């Protein structure tokens, strides 16, 4: 099995994990080439973290197989551990200790001794701009500093694969930019990165390939461009002056654009995926020409929900899942 997959950092087939009645991961295949940034995109509870934890040997799969850097996650977990690092969703650091103590502890656990452990800790702290705070307890760090220390702690030994579980959740915009730069630089240095995110923008910014998962299944995979092709250039939102005309307007838009119209929860706004801006324009013109009085309209980038809707609308029946929007639809 490893013969034809040696160029892959991650090779997973049919991974399944259940927690009681809940099937968190319901059979996922994944191939991640070495040296790439790969994003797993999905809403809360989609199974992203469980997938990551299985690949990082923290959770045993109920079914399926996977190799990470050529080592089987069930048969040779210690070998997998020797070639990965994981940064969890919450800073996995000892808050009572200083940043430097944390780094030295991990360096020693990896087998660096005495001055070598100190040197490696200081080198990483300097590289991550944490030297000034090195002797402060981690509990006094800001969110961005913690995240940087957490990622630095994953690089004591250069990992083959770095797992990042929602690396920017809870960070302010500038700290998020900082983490994005870090991730890009790490990838440039040859580290394979598998990250999970709830944000389409994050996956778009960072990842060479994106897998979209929901309800424990992979519903799409491709480059950001391929995924966007599935969702068109964006979503046209229209609201009318006369609410009683909404149904008729929805029919017209659906015919023109060949997609399904969604009503906002309050029912006053129609949303529909538009292939291109020109298509949206034409549909809007037709709407006005037919005598509808448009109160407001705008084009928006597709939200994660809308990407899901577009993907699952296209998906064949072999993926029996509901997108969040389908559930929300009246």
């Amino acid at each position: 099995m490893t013969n034809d997959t040696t160029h892959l950092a991650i090779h997973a087939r049919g991974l399944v994990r259940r927690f009681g009645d809940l099937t968190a991961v319901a059979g996922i295949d994944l191939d991640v080439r070495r040296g790439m940034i790969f994003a797993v995109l999905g809403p809360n509870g989609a199974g992203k973290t469980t997938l990551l934890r299985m690949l990082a040997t923290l959770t045993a799969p109920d079914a399926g197989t996977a190799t990470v850097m050529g080592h089987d996650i069930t048969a040779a977990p210690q070998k997998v551990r020797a070639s990965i690092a994981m940064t969890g969703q919450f800073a996995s650091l000892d808050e009572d200790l200083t940043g430097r103590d944390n780094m030295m502890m991990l360096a020693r656990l990896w087998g660096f001794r005495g001055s070598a452990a100190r040197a490696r800790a200081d080198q990483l702290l300097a590289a991550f701009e944490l030297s000034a705070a090195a002797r402060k307890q981690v509990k006094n760090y800001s969110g961005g500093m913690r995240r940087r220390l957490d990622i630095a702690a994953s690089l004591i030994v250069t990992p083959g694969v770095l797992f990042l579980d929602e690396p920017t959740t809870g960070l302010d915009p500038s700290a998020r930019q900082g983490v994005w730069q870090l991730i890009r630089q790490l990838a440039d240095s040859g580290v394979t990165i598998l990250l999970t995110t709830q944000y389409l923008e994050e996956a778009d910014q960072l990842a060479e390939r994106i897998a979209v998962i929901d309800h424990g299944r992979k519903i799409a995979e491709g480059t950001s461009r391929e995924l966007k092709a599935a969702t068109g250039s964006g979503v046209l939102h229209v609201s009318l002056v006369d609410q009683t005309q909404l149904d008729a307007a929805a029919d017209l838009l659906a015919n023109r654009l060949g997609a399904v119209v969604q009503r906002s929860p309050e029912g006053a706004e129609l949303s529909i995926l538009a292939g291109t801006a020109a298509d949206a324009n034409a549909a809007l013109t037709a709407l006005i020409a037919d005598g509808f009085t448009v109160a407001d309209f705008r084009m928006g980038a597709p939200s994660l929900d809308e990407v899901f809707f577009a993907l699952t609308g296209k998906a064949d029946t072999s993926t029996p899942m509901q997108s969040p929007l389908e559930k929300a639809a009246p």
Partner: protein
Amino acid sequence: MTDITATPAEPVGNDRAPVGAAPGIAALQHVAPPAPPGPMSNALVFGWRAILKFRHVPEQLFDLVMTPIMFTLLFTFVFGGALAGSPGDYLQFFLPGILVQTVVFNSVYSGMGLSTDFQKGLFDRFRTLPIWSLAPFAGLMVGDMLRHLIAGAIILGIGLILGYRPEAGAVGTVLAFAMLLSIGFGMGWVFIVLGLLVRTPMTVMTLGFTILFPITFASNIMVDPATMPDWLRSFVDVNPVSLMATALRGLMSGTATLTQIGLALIAPVVLTLTLAPLVLWLYRRR
């Protein structure tokens, strides 16, 4: 490095230094793992962590010794005269017992610490490292032993100031402390299991004390069970805590028999033999 210059200006503060400035992570070389360390080396690192915690969080020592100090003072001076004729006589009886209680109570803290580590995700990091699986627990035990030694020494010191005298002298005291460490080691597993099973540190503490209060009070630590009702006495006589207190009194007064020592060690040995494998199983299963 080009994307660094392309980024919009960021507020440059102490906590938000621009990432990538010199030397920058781009300067980091590929670092291969050194020779894998042995299990003992791993465990010692965790022990070192426990010692660091004492330095950074000295308050924890206060938590550890305040209760036993209060107990020693209250029981000796408030109840001592009534219970044993004079505070001095009572202290002679009570001090070895309170040492046992101190160690037993203190073992709750490692369970709390463990629960905290799990909650914070720290153990997830440890578990993705290629280290000996039991090393984090062995390290916890190293920290525990240290805590027991420090707390025990402080309580003994206060006892000596108040007039307690171990008849068996230094040798008996050293043997008594060795016994205390064995007790702490055995009891430690109980709370490591709780720490693995219970999500919040507060619940570990509440549960711990719910178990410990009855078994330490319904023992011969504070009073001679002779005055207790028969049903209670039959429990107190076989309560492992009573057996431990009896052995400790014996060791410190130089009258301990091998039977007493053997009986006191039953619980720690049984707990270690049954719970250590359980801890490993629970840890791997999480």
